[in-house]
Structures are given as C-alpha cells and as structure tokens.
C-alpha cells in the first residue's frame, strides 16, 4: 500500500517536473519566435491542400477539370497570365506589341527560361504548342478559342508573331494557355499525346515539378529551384484527394491538411470558434460563377418581357442568398464578373415586390378569371415546369423556394430534378424545357459570344434559351473585335443593361469562394483573382515550420 503510494507520488512529481520543464522550454521558444525574422524565405515546409477529386491529365490544353488545370498552372507557364486584379500581364512573354490593324501580335519572350529537364525554352516551343492545339487530328477541346489564328511565325528564338484573320480581343488571354516542350512531344499525334508518359509526369517551365502522384490519394510537387521568377518559398505542394467535404473538414482540424474550400455551412457555423480562428485564416471572395433561372424564350408563356420581369420581381433574391448560401453570396444582375470593367452597377434591379409582379402580369394579360388561385390567359392557366440537375443541393433548394414565391402570385410551378447527363441531353440540348435553374462559370475575358449571341442559339450551342437580340449581337461582335478597353467596357455595360431590362434569365447570385488556410502560411493577399495567384510568394516563418525535409 505504502509502496504503491510512493510510486504514485514519484509519478506525480515526475509529471509536474516534466511539465515545468516543458513550460520553461516553451517559454524560451516563444521568446525565440518573437525575435525570429518574419520575412519571405525559402522554408522546406509543405503546403497540403484538400481536393475533392483527382487530376486526370497534366497537359494544359487537355486538362479540362479543375484539379488537372490547377496542377498544370503550377507546372507550366503561359505567354500571359492574369494578375491579382484579373488584368492580363506577361509570363513567358516579357512584353508584346499589337499591330495597328489588330491582326498581328508580336510577343517578346523571356530568354532565361529552362524546361525542368534543362533544355532551354524558345519560340519553337510556343509555335509547337499552338500548332498542336490547332491540328484537328489532336481533337483538342478548346480549339475554338484559337480558330482565328491564321499563322504563327518565329522571328527569332525569343520573338514570335501570331497573325489573326480578324481582330480578336480575348486572344491575349487565350494565348496564356500553358506552353508544352517541343523536344518532348514532337511527332506525337492524337491519342499518342494523351498516352505519353509525360501526360502524367510533366516537364514544364513552372515553379513546381511533379514528384509523386498516387492516383486518388495524393499528388506531391517539388519546388523548381531554378524557376525564372524566383524559387518558391514553400518547397513542397501537396494535394490530398479527399472526396467528402465533411471528412476534409475533420482532416483540416486534426492537421491532416492545411487548407480546403469550406461549404457555406462550415464557414458560418463550424468555424466561428476561437480555437479555429487561432489556427486558420478564412477568406471570402466572389467565385467567378453565377446561378440563374433561364426561361425558354420560344415558349409563348415567356415571350413577353413583362412576364419575365414579373417572375423576377416575385423572387426575394436576398432571402435565397440567406437560405441557400447562409448569406455567403452577392446579388447578381448580369453575366459579367462583378467589380470588373465589364460589370455595370447601374442596371435595372428587381427588388422583391409581389404586388408589382402581379401588376405586370395583369398588364401582360394574365388574370385569375376562374378564381382557382392560378392566373390564366385565353383559358390557359399559368402553369409550367421548372427543372434542374440532380446532385446540386443549392439548385434543388432554390427550386423549392422559388416555387413558393411564384405560387404566391398565382403561378403554378412543378419542380423536377433530373440526372445531369439526361438533363443536358434530353432537355437542354433539345430545347425541351420551359424554365431551368443552372449556373455558369464566367471566363476571365468578358466576351460572352458562346452564351448570348444568336448564333449560339443554334444546335448544340449554349444559348439554349434562344435569346436573340440584334443589338446585343452587334455589341458582342464589337466587344470581341477591339482591344480598346474603354470601348469594350461600353459594349459590355450596354449588354448588361439590356439583359437586365429584358430578363431572359432571372440572375440570382454570385457565390463566394470560402477557403481556409493554416495560419503558418504568410504572404497571402486576397484579391479579385482569389488567393492562389501568388502562391510562389507564400512562405512559412522558420519557427512555425511544420514539415521538414
């Protein structure tokens, strides 16, 4: 008994002693920390991010999913890139000149760039990349963005000229496509390019190079010490594939990953604790996406502008943003990225106003003549089907909410959710719908030909609501054919105003991107482009380093 007690005492004393020691050393550590210089420096730490799905192919012009293009962005460089304010700046091109007729673009290339296998980068690689894209045998999905290129001429090793058949303003941005090495891919065609081992073990000019890729587990990138801008400060970039967002969150808290994209629910309710905010920084910026309700304009029910305006007035967008996104989004009024030169703040808005909606509907001839609570016109009740794709909770919620709003003004709506591919094939492509809920991801360039030009209303085009307005067509054509940013701004602001007036869509909201990043990463500066645009400038102070290599 007494021996037992002594042992216990010894143990307790030991624990007290050890914890005292730990306390003291901890103290001295934190003193060290205070004096450690906190400035960008190369740290052999790793940045581990959580991804919902794995990359598939690491060739820039074939990478069509966000995971692949994300990795490609770190391994390869383009001639141009967008900076933090979404402006086009040079990357592999130091500078460029555009001829007066806007048909020739001459790029002056960096002359100190090497491929990750040591071969020097030259204009040959640039020419090779775009000729590969333009060769129809290679079936490159993005070929349409380059179709106006008539020829590509090498002037010398570091000067290259693109000749366009007509002025094409988005060109500078499109030519930012990652450049692939000619000495690796030369002579490969079609399937061979895709089957090449370099499609999974890429050689680029970018700040990171692939180290290990375990399919559906993780991708490890190593920093490229000879990167021409500067060696990235974080020496490993790791992407762990964790397909479930709730599990990602558990991994984030337990330290398995350093960053993830939060869901609005997680952002609002799970991360509002002191403990979380001590360890992580949360960011919030507009995603380049918007969600909308589109009306099939060939359906006589939606032919009248007043009806579409009424439908928009009847919806409380603020309430939808609150209900569906926990308030983590902003009202959308048109198809351009908010806070850019193209976005027009002074357009017609549709604040929630059911009385106004009813008034507009009665002006359009819709009245409840048979007193059954549903409006009718010429004996036809105002009743239609609203469809959306399965598997998108937010859209399904919107459908339910909107159904209720429209019911309040006497419109009978049936909601149907349909499996994604069937939804596309049988309903969208065949124009076989009345109203639908969908979202668009907006390209950085404001050109909106593929969605709003009347030519895109033809078979398979993405103007599936059949919108056709000669004035909008003209403005789209003018906007894409001039490099004058003021003129472009005028075109797009005008388009924005027309669309806001005519309401072919009820534009609903822009959601926020909500990343959380471990606090040891410094140098993150949120901007319109998000946070990852300056990843090579992120750094970890030595005292906070987590992984060591």
């Amino acid at each position, binding site marked *: 008994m007494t021996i037992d007690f002594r042992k216990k005492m010894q143990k307790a004393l030991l624990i007290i002693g050890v914890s005292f020691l730990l306390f003291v050393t901890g103290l001295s550590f934190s003193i060290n920390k205070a004096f450690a210089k906190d400035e960008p420096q190369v740290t052999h730490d790793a940045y581990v991010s959580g991804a919902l799905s794995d990359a598939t192919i690491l060739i820039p012009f074939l990478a069509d999913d966000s995971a692949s293009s994300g990795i490609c962005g770190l391994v390869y460089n383009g001639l141009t890139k967008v900076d933090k304010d979404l402006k086009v700046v040079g990357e592999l091109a130091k500078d460029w000149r555009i001829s007066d007729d806007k048909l020739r673009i001459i790029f002056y290339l960096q002359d100190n760039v090497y491929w990750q296998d040591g071969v020097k980068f030259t204009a040959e690689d640039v020419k090779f990349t775009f000729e590969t894209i333009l060769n129809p045998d290679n079936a*490159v*999905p993005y070929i349409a963005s380059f179709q106006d290129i008539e020829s590509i001429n090498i002037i010398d090793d570091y000067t290259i000229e693109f000749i366009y058949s007509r002025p094409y303003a988005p060109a500078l941005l499109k030519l930012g496509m990652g450049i692939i090495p000619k000495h690796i891919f030369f002579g490969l065609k079609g399937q061979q390019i895709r089957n090449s081992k370099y499609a*999974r073990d890429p050689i680029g000019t970018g700040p990171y190079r692939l180290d290990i890729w375990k399919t559906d587990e993780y991708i490890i990138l190593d920093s490229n010490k000879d990167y021409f801008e500067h060696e990235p400060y974080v020496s490993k970039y790791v992407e762990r594939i964790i397909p479930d967002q709730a599990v990602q969150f558990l991994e984030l808290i337990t330290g398995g990953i350093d960053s993830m994209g939060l869901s609005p629910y997680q952002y609002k309710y799970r991360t509002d604790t002191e403990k979380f905010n001590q360890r992580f920084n949360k960011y919030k910026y507009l995603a380049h996406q918007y969600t909308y309700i589109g009306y099939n304009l060939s359906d006589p029910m939606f032919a009248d502008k007043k009806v579409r305006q009424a439908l928009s007035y009847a919806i409380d967008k603020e309430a939808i943003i609150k209900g569906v996104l926990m308030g983590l989004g902003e009202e959308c009024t048109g198809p351009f990225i908010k806070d850019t030169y193209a976005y027009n703040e002074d357009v017609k808005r549709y604040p929630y106003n059911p009385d106004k909606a009813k008034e507009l509907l009665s002006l359009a001839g819709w009245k409840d003549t048979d007193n059954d609570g549903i409006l009718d016109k010429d004996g036809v009740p105002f009743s239609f089907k609203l469809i959306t794709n399965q598997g998108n909770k937010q859209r399904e919620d919107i459908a339910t909410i909107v159904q209720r709003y429209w019911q309040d003004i006497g419109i009978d709506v049936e909601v149907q959710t349909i499996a994604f591919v069937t939804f596309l094939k049988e309903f969208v492509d065949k124009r076989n719908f009345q109203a639908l809920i969908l979202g668009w991801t907006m390209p950085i360039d404001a050109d909106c030909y593929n969605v709003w030009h009347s030519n895109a209303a033809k078979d398979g085009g993405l103007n599936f609501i059949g919108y056709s307005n000669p004035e909008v067509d003209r403005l789209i054509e003018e906007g894409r054919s001039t490099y004058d940013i003021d003129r472009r701004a005028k075109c797009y602001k005008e388009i924005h105003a027309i669309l806001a007036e005519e309401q072919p869509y009820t534009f609903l909201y822009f959601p926020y991107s909500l990343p959380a990043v471990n606090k040891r990463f410094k140098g993150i500066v949120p901007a319109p482009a998000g946070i990852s645009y300056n990843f090579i400038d992120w750094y970890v102070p030595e005292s906070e380093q987590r992984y060591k290599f």
Partner: protein
Amino acid sequence: MIKYILKRISLMIPMLIGISLLTLLIMHLSPGDPTSMRYGLNPEVSGSARAQLQELYGLDKPFLEQYISWLKRIVTLDFGRSFVDNRPVIEKIGERLPATLLLQASALILIFSIAMPVGVLSAVKKNSLFDKITTFLVFIGFATPTFWLALLLMRVFAFELEWFPVSGMSPWYAAYMTPFERVRDILWHLVLPLLTLAFTGLASLSRYVRYSMLEVIKQDYIRTARAKGLPDKKIIYKHALKNALLPVITILGMTLPALIGGSFIFETIFAWPGMGRLGYMSIMQYDYPVVMGVGIISVFLTLVGILISDILYAAVDPRIRYE
C-alpha cells in the same frame, strides 16, 4: 472432377460474352456520352470539338462494331485505355485492387472469425441472455448505415481522441518513411474502416450460421448422437458444425466479387483508393473501357466464386459428387 471443372470453365465463356454485351448496351442506352458530362456546359468547348473527340475514341462507329473491336482486344487481354485519363484500364484496376483486397479480405476474416462462434453459440444457447444480446447487437449493426457509422467512428476516434488518422490509406509523406513504418502506418489507417465494415457486415453471416445450426441440431442424427451419450462439445463442434457450414460455403463464394468490387460510399468517406470509387466514377463519366474492364473482372470472379464453392461442397459433403 477435372473434366467437370473444365466443362464449367468453358460454359463461362458464352456467359461472359453475353454479360459484357449487355453491359455495353446498357451504357449506350443511357442518354449521353463521354463528352457530354465533361463538356456539355463548357462555353469554351465547341460542338465540333466534341465531335472530333468522339471520333478519336471511336464513339462515332455503330454499337456492334464498337463491341466487336472491344471483344477482339479482350481476347488478347488488352482492356483498352480509359477515356478520362488515357491510361491502360488494366493499370488503373491494378493500382486499386490491392487497396480494396487488403481492406475487404481483412474485413472478411474478421467477420468470419466473429460471426461463426457468435452464430454457433447463439444457436446452441437459443433464447439465452447471450442469444438475446447478440441478436440485438447484430441487428443494430445490420440497421446501421455504413456512412453514418463511418462518420461517427471518425468523429470519436480520429477527431476527438485522435487515436487514428481520419482518412486515407497512407500519409502523403509515406515515401519518406522506412518500409517498417509504412506497414505500421497502413495498419493504423486500416483500423477504422475495418471496424466499420466488420460491424455492419457481421449481422447477415452470424444469422446464417445461427439459422443453419438450429436446423442441424433438430436433425435425427444429432438426437441419435445425444442418445448415444456423446459429449455435447463433440456433438456440436464435430457433427453439427460440419453440416451447418454447408450454406456458409455458398456465402463465402458469393463474397468473392464484393472482395474486389469494394464499396463506393465507404471508400469515398474514408478516401480509400479502392475499386468501388473507380467503378462508380467511371460509370458517371461514361468511361466505357473502364466500366467494361471492372465489369468483366467482377463477373469473372463471381463465376469463379460460384465454381469454387461448388467444388468445396464436394469436398465437405460426401453426398455430392461431380462426374
């Protein structure tokens, strides 16, 4: 016996052809094609670019022609390449199989080694407290959704207590560890998924064992053995158990495809790089070659599983003879 086995194997061939034809047919009958999921709503991908892609993958050819060219390749064991990442199908399956096998096989062993004694004991001590408690627990396991239990275990043991890792099969820095550490680490990652699978899988097997044991115990020859004064232990474990295991062999044969098929929901939650995720994702992406590859291998294993259990029958039960 050998003649019988050969005959059974030769019968598998028309079966495999029929099933693979049906698989491809069903894939083609569902609306859409590999390009619609990826590019259907991408404003930067034109319709003509999609048509070129279909041509590249041979999807513009008639259905039967596509099937025959697949069949020709499969005879030489060439499973083709994935439409999504262009890697050989066999390579994609090959890198998933070990993960699924490791998990499913260890779960199966665990389930058998618990379910058999539990089943036997609850049959022998029918209506005892032990029987009632196990019945209760087993039904809870049966009724518990896998995903829910997985998240619960994760929350308690990985998140609150931090005893086990949350998800994955190995950490990303596995390459920098010693082989011993790597094995230990995989075992450490295996615990939670294994517990989840075992708990939810225990029910049906232990019930089968219990039921079939109860049937056997009622038989005349058991009563005879009892009347002869044989000790209970000998009756149960020598005479009864052997006969009670016959249906269990059938079940064992049927679990073979599940062994390599994996489970999508489960693997998604645990971020386990297994076959279930591969199969599901390739169906969603209309990745025909992978779907066909996974399908044909599962069908083959199912048939082999049935064959093995038939052969085992003959080995266990002297009444069954194959000529």
